[in-house]
Structures are given as C-alpha cells and as structure tokens.
C-alpha cells in the first residue's frame, strides 16, 4: 500500500523562535520581497489560546499572503504559514501540512524541533531552518536533523538576540551555515531564489 511519493519541488524556509523572536519578525517581514520560489513557515512558541492574534499581526506586517493553517492544508510556495497554537505542525510527503496534538516537546506545542525534523525528512536539501531568539533549547535537535538531511542551518547571532539562550545552545551543538544578525537575516531571506 505504498503511497506514491511526489517529489517535493520547491524550497521551504522555517523560522523558529521563542521569547524575543516576534520583534525580529516585525523588523524583517515588512521588508521581505515576494517569495514565489519558496514557502515560509513560522513556528513560534505562544501562549496556548484559541485566538489568531499572531496570524493577524504577521499578516499586517507583510504583503506576502498568509495562509491559515488547518488540518491537511495544501502547502505551496509563495505563501507564509504560521503554526497554530497548541498543535505541532508536521509535513506530509505530498506537500500537505498536518497537525498533531501529542505531548509537548521541550515544554512547547508547537515545538520547533518537531517541525524542523518533520520538514527535514520530506524536503531534505530544499529546507532551510532559521532559529531565532529564545529562552528554551527547542530547535537545537531539529537543526541537527536538517543538517543530516543536507538542508541549510541558520542561527540568529546570540549578540543580536533579545534572549540569547536558544541561539547559543543551538550554536554550541550545530555547525551552522550562517550566523546572522537581524539585518543580515533580512538580506539572506531576500536572496533565496
């Protein structure tokens, strides 16, 4: 009963962050170019609540269309996707997103590790994982998996992070392709083709 695996043919960029990362996004998002070549996924630790404030806030800051993530949402380049609160965000092999309410990972749901690992399995070298500011070690293991699957690893420079703990732990346990401050991060994402 093997499913036909349609090869994933576009790039995926996942930005993961916790405390202090929203500020980075608020600076970067308004100056992002259109992203026709790739899909941008944002996985932030957030208070578990039903409201969609984060999606609204992000949508206000960018001209790139933000797609609401529901179960089995089609995953396409050119859009921003925000992991909903209280669900882990996973990637199916046929360019579809799925959600999972299983146990918290690193005290978090959504967990950055979970999304990094799941996307790395499907998108391999087409995946870039970017880890921002935070006070938790979520994301470190996921970045390792991205590297194993030949993806690109980017970590916010701890000196530029409001909460340097998360990027610092990630740095200590990874050999990132890039360590960038906020301005450089903007330039980096805008250069992805």
């Amino acid at each position, binding site marked *: *009963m*093997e*499913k036909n*695996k349609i090869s994933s043919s576009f790039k995926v960029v996942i930005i993961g962050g916790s405390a202090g990362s929203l500020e980075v996004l608020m600076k970067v998002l308004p100056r992002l170019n259109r992203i026709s070549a790739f899909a941008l996924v944002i996985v932030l630790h957030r208070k578990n609540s*039903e409201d969609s404030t984060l999606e609204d806030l992000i949508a206000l800051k960018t001209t790139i269309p933000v797609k609401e*993530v*529901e*179960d*089995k949402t089609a995953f396409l380049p050119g859009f921003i996707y925000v992991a*909903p609160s209280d*669900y882990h965000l*996973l*990637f*199916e*092999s046929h360019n579809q997103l*799925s*959600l*999972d*309410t*299983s*146990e918290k990972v690193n005290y978090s749901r959504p967990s950055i590790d*979970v999304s990094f*690992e*799941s996307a790395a*399995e*499907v998108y391999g070298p087409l995946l870039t994982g970017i880890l921002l500011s935070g006070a938790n070690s979520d994301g470190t293991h996921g970045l390792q*998996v991205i590297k194993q699957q030949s993806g690109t690893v980017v970590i916010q420079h701890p000196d530029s992070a409001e909460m340097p703990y998360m990027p610092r732990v990630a740095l200590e346990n990874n050999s990132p392709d890039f360590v960038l401050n906020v301005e450089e991060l903007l330039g980096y994402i805008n250069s992805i083709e």
Partner: protein
Amino acid sequence: MVNDRQLEVLINDVYEYHGFDFSGYSRASLKRRVDRLIQLDNFADFTAFLSKVRTDGTYFKHMVEEITVNVTEMFRDPHFYKVLREDILPLLATKPFIRFWHAGCSTGEEVYSMAILLKEANLLHKSLLYATDINPLVLDTAKKGIFPLRMIKSYSENYMASGGKKDFSHYYTANYGLAKFGEDLSEKMVFSIHNLVSDGSFNEFDLILCRNVLIYFDKDLQERALQLFDDSLSKLGYLALGTKETIKFSSIQDRYEQVQKEKIWKKTK
C-alpha cells in the same frame, strides 16, 4: 528515525498479522509515534521492533495504545464549550431525550465536561453520553473519572471561561494527587470500544463530538469517518470537530450548515 518504506512495512504487517488497518493514518504523525515507541521501549532497531509487533499479541496491544495520541483536557477550547452551553444545548433541550456520541474520547475529560454542562442546564437526567475509543486502556480511565489533580487548576480556569458559574471543586473529590469526578456525572455515560476505521454506525445521535481525532487520518479515512457520522446523526443534529478540522471539501458538506464561526455543523438535510 523510521523511514517511509519501514513505516509502510509496519502498516502492512500489522494488517496481515492482527487485522488492524493503519493505512489511512497520516504518515507524518504516525512516523513520530513509531519513533517515540521504539525509543521508549528501548528497541535496538526497527527490525527488532517489527518482529515483536508481529509475534507478540500483548505487545501489539500495547503498541496500539501507545501509537494513538491520548492528549486531552477538560473544557478544551473554552469558547467552544461556551457556544455549546449558550447556543446548542438550549435547542437540544426541547427534545424528550438527547443522545451524544464522543468519538475518540480518549481518557474522557471532554465527556465529563459535557456532563457538567448538561447538569448545569438541567438536561443530564434525559441525556445519554456514548463515549468510544479504539484504545481500551484510556476507556478504563474514562470510566473511573479520575484525573490528575495537578491539571485541575487549568481545567477550573477553562470551566470558568466556558461560562461556568459554580465552584469547580464542587464536581470532584481530591485525594492523593487525584481528582475523582462524581458518579452523578458518569451515570449517564456508556463507554465502549469503537474503531472509526472499521466499525459502523450503532445508534442515532443529536450531537456527535469528534475533536482532534480526524487530524490523524488522511483525506480518504476522514471521508469515511464523516460519512459514518452523517449516517449516525439525526436530522437537525450537530457535528463538532476540533478547532483546526473541517468538513469543507468533504462529500457531506452540502447537507450541513456551519454554526457561526465555530467548528460545529448542523445537519440540514
């Protein structure tokens, strides 16, 4: 990590050896659950795990229990319960008898939440709450109505956010880190094993709740489950799903009307 091919071998063998069909489960989530289990139970590798699953019936049961996700809470998404309390239950109240089905009820926290709503609306005496799950272990917990006391603070907050006015502690007795909910709540509950993959309709209901279960199924299996719910709903009955689930794009969509912006649909035909 288990790879795609290994996962398909596991699905095939589980069906062949035990008649259990996981082929309609979402692969991304299933893969994580299998990885977790291999780690938790200290298997050297996938092959060792697979051979145990094939040959040891007791272990296979354990696998089914562990592979399904059993995370739940009382009054999960309080606003959903507020809508049930204020908009749905008053409409159901006119019926002489009200039947509920919690499909995939796990350890039962949402069933007890519903019983509390019904009690407060003075409807529990004429209600019947069927609660089903694929996993017998979680049903045992649900029957007892005993939940960890450390969760009660957040449940109590959820209860209040759902429009609850009573002192929440009135519903349970606390003892040794556990909270036991009263039998006055559970006396109208019927628990039984039911598999949404293979079992059929068994009654007609006025409200079916299946929250955060369909997310573990692929589109085809979701379609099957939705058909089953449609077959099991009375005319003008309601179907309630999780906050990120939908009947949009399914074949039953045309017969249903969404209630406000909630994940609640009313059967109109």
